[in-house]
């Protein structure tokens, strides 16, 4: 992947061995898993459905990618940083977005702006809890998620459906590729540039590795970390809009399943949980892997318990296989 290599500014002198080692990156495992599961499905159900499976994975796995990208930024900003408010942010943003857009195509732009505004507010509020009250992020974002949930509840009655144009965008595709997948791809590329080509990426990585050292090296720790939280919430908000669009309306519980999933895809994708190293490609690989695994388990008729067990064992296996990615 291009972004990977360019993250090493002075890659030219790399020896062949070092290249080989960088190819043996942790994110590769999730792709291997994805391909295996995909072949598994195709093997069992015939080649005819191959593209169908890939398409659904692209449509619905994309939501995992999106929330994962936001979570990735937060996790990269240092050990212990996790955003658990993703589900309630999705609920609130969906609710606000639907209200602002009033089912009318003319208000879509306004709605998008409002939703992004929700993201900014939530992100800043989360970070204020962490910084001013020094509450550990995992608890701070959990607490704030309750409050956000309450606000969403008060606003969540009698929601208008999304504007038709938005719905059409969410379900439309070009050359078999869903628009929303393209949108997620564009966002991923933008983030890749931000992380690997812009100074912000270096600042984020620095505070993720050692906040004190970063501070002493001249990084504005708070601004950098705050931006990570804000971006995470903004991406979650955007996801909310797409979710509402594709499922024909916002609901309070449409984000619930993304709390743990968003963390899972980030870490399975090879981003360091201890912070300092983000892997965008990995988020894609992991999302596709998890979505396809779930679909495959549904398809073979495994019931919920078995499905959950297999799901868990797979997550652990991928992690174990990719293991040893510590620095020493």
């Amino acid at each position: 992947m291009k972004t990977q290599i360019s993250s090493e500014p002075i890659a030219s002198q790399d020896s062949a061995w070092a290249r080989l080692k960088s190819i043996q990156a942790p994110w590769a495992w999730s792709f291997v898993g994805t391909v295996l599961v995909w072949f598994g499905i195709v093997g069992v159900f015939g080649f005819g459905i191959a593209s169908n499976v890939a398409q659904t994975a692209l449509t619905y796995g994309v939501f995992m990618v999106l929330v994962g990208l936001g979570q990735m930024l937060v996790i990269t900003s240092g050990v212990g940083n996790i955003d658990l408010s993703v589900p309630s942010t999705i609920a609130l943003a969906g609710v606000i977005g639907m209200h602002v857009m009033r089912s009318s195509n003319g208000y879509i732009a306004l709605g998008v702006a409002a939703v992004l505004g929700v993201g900014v507010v939530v992100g800043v509020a989360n970070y204020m809890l962490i910084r001013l009250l020094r509450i550990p992020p995992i608890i701070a974002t959990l607490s704030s998620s309750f409050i956000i949930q309450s606000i969403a509840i008060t606003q969540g009655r009698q929601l208008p459906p999304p504007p038709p144009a938005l719905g059409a965008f969410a379900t439309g595709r070009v050359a078999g590729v869903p628009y929303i997948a393209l949108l997620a791809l564009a966002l991923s590329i933008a983030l890749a540039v931000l992380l690997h080509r812009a100074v912000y990426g270096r600042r984020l990585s620095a505070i993720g590795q050692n906040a004190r050292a970063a501070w002493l090296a001249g990084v504005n720790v708070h601004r950098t970390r705050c931006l990570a939280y804000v971006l995470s919430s903004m991406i979650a908000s955007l996801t909310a809009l797409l979710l509402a669009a594709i499922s024909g309306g916002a609901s309070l519980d449409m984000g619930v399943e993304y709390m743990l999933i968003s963390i899972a895809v980030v870490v399975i994708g090879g981003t360091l949980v201890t912070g300092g190293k983000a892997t965008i490609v990995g988020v894609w690989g992991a999302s596709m892997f998890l979505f396809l695994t779930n679909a495959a388990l549904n398809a073979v008729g495994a019931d919920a318990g078995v499905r959950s067990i297999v799901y868990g064992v797979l997550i652990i296996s991928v992690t174990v296989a990719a293991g040893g990615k510590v620095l020493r």
Partner: protein
Amino acid sequence: ATGDTSQKKIALSNSFAGNAWRQSMLKSWNAVSQQAVADKKVAAAPAFTTAENQVTEQAQQIQNLILQGYNAIVIDAVSPTALNGTIKKACAAGVVVVSFDGVVDEPCAYRVNFDFKGWAEQGVDYLATRLNGKGNILEVRGVAGISVDNLMHEGVLEGLKKHPGMKLVGSVNGDWTQSVAQKAVAGILPTLPQVDGVATEGEMSFGIAQAFKAANRPAPPMIIGSTYPELQWWSEQTKAGYQSRSLSNPPGAVSFAFWVAQQVLAGKKIPKEVTINVPLLAISQQELPAKLAAIPPGGIADVTYTLPQTVALLDKK
């Protein structure tokens, strides 16, 4: 019964507030309880909600309500069995416990509920009539491990037993959430042969329909829920000749549970052994336009019960 309950306090212990159904239920509770307080029927009737839909949380909440001296507690329980210990404590403290929707096993509590199993069975029967008893069925279930889900699943199996020509070709969990159901169905559809009917557990039909549409398959017959987007979609499909019916558990039935609690406090004898079934809300193809016009966008088709209606229903049984 007409005993004086004007000094009595009734609490609602609700396990979850994060979906439209529970929201409507809370709204109905507030409406009926405020009116009752104004009419001096009860002294107070606040609603309490827990944040995480968890047994331990609700158990703690009920214990606190006992401490606060409520005379009756209406419980929408997160688990039918796991609150038993706590409810026993409540009964021992002389509190009237009425469980509703999420009902509990504990014999000392009253049970007001919907016939979930029958609902699911009716759904399959309906599919059987539409499909002439033959076809591939996809089942979309609720949240795994929840008793209602199991009841409805049993109902589906029972219904299928009656119609051997219908074959269950797949089963996914849609968590009673449109977007989750949509994702789950979309994930399994490519691996399925033609799907002739969908057995759902309510409130998910719109998401399911979206998934079929995305897979370029026609929406098969299925029972529709009662939320606005579902009814709206149904009404649109009607133009293309799609026929269906709607069956749902109205959240407003909480008012029924409220009056049951009030009546028990007033001295009415109501059997605890049997579950009192509140009728499901059915909407036929003919009724659809009128019903749809009556609910606001984003709303839900609902019924609420007044005291006389409740008493009438109770006495009929």
